């Protein structure tokens, strides 16, 4: 039997306790006498959270293994405290069949650093025209429950309606990339406002998101289905969500760490590291998003981790790839901007970064409390540790890190996934302890 004792962690930031983990399950909580054959993970002074769950990442495999692989993305996820990530379908080939979904699932499983859950495409080839084999993906070994054409909006209202209806029997959810392509086309790359006007960059107006979200919540009401709004970026969307939730419509939403901090004026130097979709917005939107996360209008934080090869970011701004890294910095960002100022407690962080995303994504063995009988997915955080982000130190294969050089307070020091330590830097910032079990087969998970 594999035994691990996590000693002295403050559970959700409250009272300190020991956790005994046996074969991947928490079997004792409190003052644990360490069994002789157990490994001990000293977590004195650290905050223990249920393993973090990310509803929105791009792992680029298959197709762009030069930018990221399921292995490197999993390593970045573990370093960021994540024990489950939802891998978006916009790979090459697209995850629009059961076979493609199973392949992603199996590669993640073999890697064994985090649970890799494939997101299925809503439409074949992400083309927005015909439904992909949603049911077969749901029945597959990958048990797909989240469907998204992310990168593209499911723009056709009839297709969106059918998708919402169709996934009901198997508890699926449509995660919508809300971007009306007529209001914000392919070129749109900068929040439409004073900055885009001055810089002469094609604008991406907030209304292109808000109008789709407004339509989709009405479709969700009409169909009685669940809809999830990916990467909410504007105050207007927050208003729509608040109204919809008050009506009892089954809508959930996520916000990225970057939309909680970074603003559109960063684009003044035309540095494509800040090019992301949806674009960085003005400070008013950032504040509305923080407030919405605090009051529960937005359910979850999701990174939209989007690695890109360096040369794909070294084009002229309008031609450069959209997206930024996020897995390794997400917890630190949330800690720095919301926990340290006292707007979120650690129990709230557990909700928005673990419990809620696990529930939205239909993962029954993730996002549980740190209680007896729960799977041992645990993230250990030093709330006082200051980290200065270094893009070169990333586990990701890519370097498009907008947080490079910023100092953030709060850091993930260790991650336990199904009872195994998948990340551990307790011995000091930047030092990485080689884990003997991290590269072994995950077949026993």
């Amino acid at each position: 039997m594999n035994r691990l004792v996590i000693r002295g962690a403050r559970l959700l930031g409250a009272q300190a306790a020991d956790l005994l983990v046996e074969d991947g399950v928490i079997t004792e909580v409190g003052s644990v006498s360490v069994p002789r054959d157990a490994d001990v993970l000293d977590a004195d002074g650290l905050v223990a959270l249920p393993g973090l769950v990310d509803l929105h990442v791009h792992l680029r495999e298959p197709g762009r293994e030069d930018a990221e692989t399921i292995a490197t993305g999993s390593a970045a996820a573990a370093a960021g405290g994540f024990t489950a990530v939802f891998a978006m379908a916009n790979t090459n080939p697209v995850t629009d069949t059961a076979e493609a979904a199973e392949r992603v699932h199996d590669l993640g499983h073999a890697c064994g650093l985090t649970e890799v859950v494939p997101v299925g495409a809503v439409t074949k080839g992400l083309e927005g025209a015909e439904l992909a084999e949603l049911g077969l993906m749901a029945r597959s070994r990958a048990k797909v429950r989240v469907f998204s054409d992310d990168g593209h909006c499911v723009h056709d209202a009839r297709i969106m309606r059918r998708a919402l209806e169709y996934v009901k029997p198997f508890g699926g959810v449509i995660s919508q990339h809300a971007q009306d392509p007529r209001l914000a086309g392919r070129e749109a790359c900068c929040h439409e406002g004073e900055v885009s006007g001055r810089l002469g960059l094609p604008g991406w107006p907030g209304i292109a998101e808000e109008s789709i979200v407004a339509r989709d919540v009405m479709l969700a009401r009409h169909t009685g289905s669940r809809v999830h709004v990916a990467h909410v970026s504007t105050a207007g969307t927050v208003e729509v969500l608040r109204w919809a939730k008050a009506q009892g419509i089954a809508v959930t939403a996520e916000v990225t760490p970057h939309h909680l901090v970074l603003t559109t004026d960063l684009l003044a130097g035309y540095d494509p590291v800040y090019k992301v979709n949806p674009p960085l917005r003005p400070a008013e939107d950032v504040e509305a998003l923080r407030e919405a996360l605090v009051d529960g209008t937005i359910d979850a934080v999701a990174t939209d981790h989007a690695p890109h090869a360096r040369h794909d970011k070294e084009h002229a701004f309008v031609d450069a790839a959209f997206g930024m890294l996020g897995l390794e910095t997400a917890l630190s960002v949330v800690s720095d901007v919301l926990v340290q100022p006292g707007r979120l407690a650690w129990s709230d962080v557990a909700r928005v970064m673990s419990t809620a995303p696990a529930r939205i994504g239909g993962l029954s063995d993730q996002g549980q409390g740190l209680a007896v009988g729960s799977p041992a997915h645990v993230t250990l955080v030093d709330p006082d540790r200051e980290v200065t982000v270094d893009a070169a130190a990333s586990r990701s294969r890519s370097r498009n890190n907008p947080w490079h050089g910023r100092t953030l307070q709060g850091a993930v020091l260790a991650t336990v996934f199904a009872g195994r330590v998948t990340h551990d830097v307790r011995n000091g910032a930047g030092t990485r302890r080689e884990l003997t079990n991290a590269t072994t087969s995950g077949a026993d998970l």
Partner: protein
Amino acid sequence: MTRHLISSADLTRRDVEDILETAASMHDLQRREVKKVPTLRGRTVINFFFEDSTRTRSSFEIAGKWMSADTINLSAKGSSTSKGESLRDTAMTIDAMAVDALVIRHNASGACHQVAKWVRCSVINAGDGTHEHPTQALLDAYTLRTRLGDLDGRHVVIVGDLTHSRVFRSNVITLKTLGARVTVVAPPTLMPSGIAAWSEADGFATSWDLDAVLDGDDPVDAVMMLRVQRERMSGGFFPTPREYTVGYGLTRDRLDRLVARNEDVLVLHPGPMNRGLEIAPEAADAPQSVVLDQVSAGVAVRMAVLYHLLAGDDTPAPAATSPDASSAPTSRTTEGAAR
């Protein structure tokens, strides 16, 4: 002055005045039989045009040649894509040839900003997407000053497709730098986003009503008509050319009203003109039109920019070293009025 000319905002009033003063000397050179001066002998200037351009490229090319720089024209078609060479690789390749200046025209806003971060040579923005075109603003300022003198307090009206205009973006900066008052006019669909906050912060006026501006209390010293691309129609920016002309064209009637109030009013257009759309032939060819003066000033201003960016501090201005400098025409006003 800075090493690069990327944005009109890089230039202080002193910088602009120095350049325009040098440009005046250069302009005098243009009327000589032998136009070439040795100032930039041994320097290499590459005109890298990622977008078609006739007048700007030939203007830079002539400017470089008359300064005795080795000028080489390169063109690359269209925008880079993820499949093509990255902008950085292109820039580094040119830079590795140890050139002194890279004059860039690119269809993407900000391309010159990005290139300047990667290369050792001077970068001159010859128009980047819908962002800026600083040498155009300098030649417009040169043209205006030739006729009007000091621009402090002068009222310049810029009319047209502001959203897609790099000429507008650079001009509003340079004109404000020189103390002019600026009013920009366009239908709401061709006003850049955020113009309300922008104009308030930078101190210029905006209007949707051209007639109200032309007939208003504030007399107009110059109108600058911007080119309207017919393909904007398909973007739904305005319904028909006819309707655009009625609302925002410098028609014969509007010109007559302007001239009735101020005979010395100036009409500018960066070219190429759409006669009959944003400017009536009567306005384009009126005595008040300085469109060809702008072209002529373009070479002189670009020579001055090359001089200020590339010539060492100890290199005297060419006019001063020229053996027949004293015989060069001195009255710019006379020359301008002759057109």
